[in-house]
């Protein structure tokens, strides 16, 4: 297993947001985590990437316990996080954004060029925009840059928080299709509220409600579940 989360409890003050979450991701997998507003998806992501210390439970990555490590250490060992809401350096160029994404590997200059080529192949539009200020790009382009930024250090696992937020279904779909291209190098844990698109590209899925995993299984099984259909697929 690439990532194993076991009985994870996370609280903001006395308010427990994650109540014993169990979750696994294998190499080469795309896994969806589906839940409505406030279910705890972003909290789970922030805990894995070291921004929040869990109250209890374990997070193992590549066999190593990583719960409680700093964000810097988490990126260095191969987990990057693309937070919700298109996080960019808006006044810096596309190139600069990608360079800063590569921060933890900065000593390896040749590696940077390779990674740059890699993300340009996945998102050709970024190559054309290389000198443009990130904040002046369209919403879709910004989301692509945000993902590309997170892919720069060649992570083993990408945490992708609500990538379709504010994008048209067509644009969202193009983002999800990209995940299939990268998954052999980089496994993906992707969170969504409206799951019809993300489930189509996912291998497996979890449904989270009020900080607890309610359902999990193969993506098509989850998609076929009547309750999921009603609550998250809008069918």
């Amino acid at each position, binding site marked *: 297993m690439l990532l194993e989360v076991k009985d994870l409890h996370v609280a903001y003050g006395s308010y427990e947001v994650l109540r014993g979450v169990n979750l696994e991701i294998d190499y080469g997998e795309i896994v969806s985590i589906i839940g409505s507003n406030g279910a705890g998806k972003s909290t789970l992501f922030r805990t894995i990437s070291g921004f929040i210390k869990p109250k209890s439970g374990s997070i193992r990555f590549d066999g190593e316990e990583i719960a409680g490590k*700093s*964000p*810097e250490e*988490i990126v260095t060992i191969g987990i990057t*996080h693309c937070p919700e809401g298109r*996080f960019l350096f808006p006044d*810096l160029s596309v190139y600069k954004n990608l360079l800063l994404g590569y921060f933890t590997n900065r000593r390896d200059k040749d590696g940077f060029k390779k990674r740059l080529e890699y993300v340009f192949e996945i998102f050709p539009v970024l190559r054309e925009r290389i000198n443009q200020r990130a904040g002046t790009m369209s919403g879709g382009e910004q989301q692509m840059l945000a993902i590309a930024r997170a892919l720069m250090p060649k992570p083993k696992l990408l945490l992708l928080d609500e990538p379709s937020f504010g994008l048209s279904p067509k644009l969202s779909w193009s983002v999800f299709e990209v995940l299939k291209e990268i998954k052999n190098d980089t496994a993906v844990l992707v969170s969504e509220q409206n799951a019809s698109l993300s489930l189509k590209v996912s291998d497996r899925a979890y449904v989270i409600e009020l900080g607890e995993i309610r359902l999990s299984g193969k993506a098509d099984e989850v998609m076929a579940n009547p309750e999921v259909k009603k609550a998250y697929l809008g069918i």
Partner: protein
Amino acid sequence: MNWKIVCPTILVLALLLPLTGSSYAIRISTLFIIYTIAAMGLNIIIGYTGQASLTQGAFYGLGAYVSALLVLNGWSFWSSLVVAVAFVAAVAFLIGLMTLRLKGAYFAIATLLFNVIIYEIVDKWDEVTRGPRGLFGIPSPAIEIGGVSISFSGTQNFYYLMLAVLVIMTVLYWIIIKSPFGSIIVAIRENELLAEYAGVNLTKFKVASFVFSAIFASVAGAFYSAYIGSIFPDITSFVNSFAFLTAVIFGGAGTLAGPFVGTAVVTLINEVFFTLAQYTVLIQGIVFLLAILFMPKGVMGTYYSRKAEKGGELPKRAIMGKL
């Protein structure tokens, strides 16, 4: 503006300045250079890292005091300078560790408090600093080249010495801003949280740029004490922090040339209103207010914005400062 022409031209004019024979012009220019060095340092932490430090004056004054005390104890100016810089850097490191976890205005207030503390220590620790009586008769620096000793006691000699120091410090400043380190601190300024998501250890980089800013201040302070020959506790007060801040904001925080332009204005104000010396702070305050009300990006920041609106290219790395 073509910097490849502007910079050498200014340097040549600066080299020729003593030909005017005006010791007044030389004196002002020397002070301008000293203040500019401190303002450059402040621009690193405020303009590029986006952390509003209000303690640059204390580092400046501390640099002046440490080096003056050592020189008065018989040390050579150069070894005093090195020790003063190292001492101030260590102080900045400790203050930075304590304060740089605070955000925005809280950091600003905490640094202001440290400025007050440092001032009080210098003012009250009579046994060491001589308190309000100040330090007098601080000798000028000298160097020996091949057995010939050159003293920098004359106005003109000191001016050339400062010109050389300015060139060195400007190159250092330029390297800091243009290096990967410079890009990282700009990233912290632009989006601190995202920088952290990218794996940047915020505390490490913020403290490092705070220490850099203090190093520039202490170099400026040490040369100031050697130039003027006497110093008083006032030199560590927040009034100086405020003057450097005005220079950085007015010139354009987060632009390379900002500290030069801003310091030129502040130095001129001090001279023009020389007879109103007791109102200097008031006048600087007015300039500061006018700057943040009508030109929040400062002279150079506004210049680059105009250029960008007309489709001109932005400076490659130095993006307009946001405070």
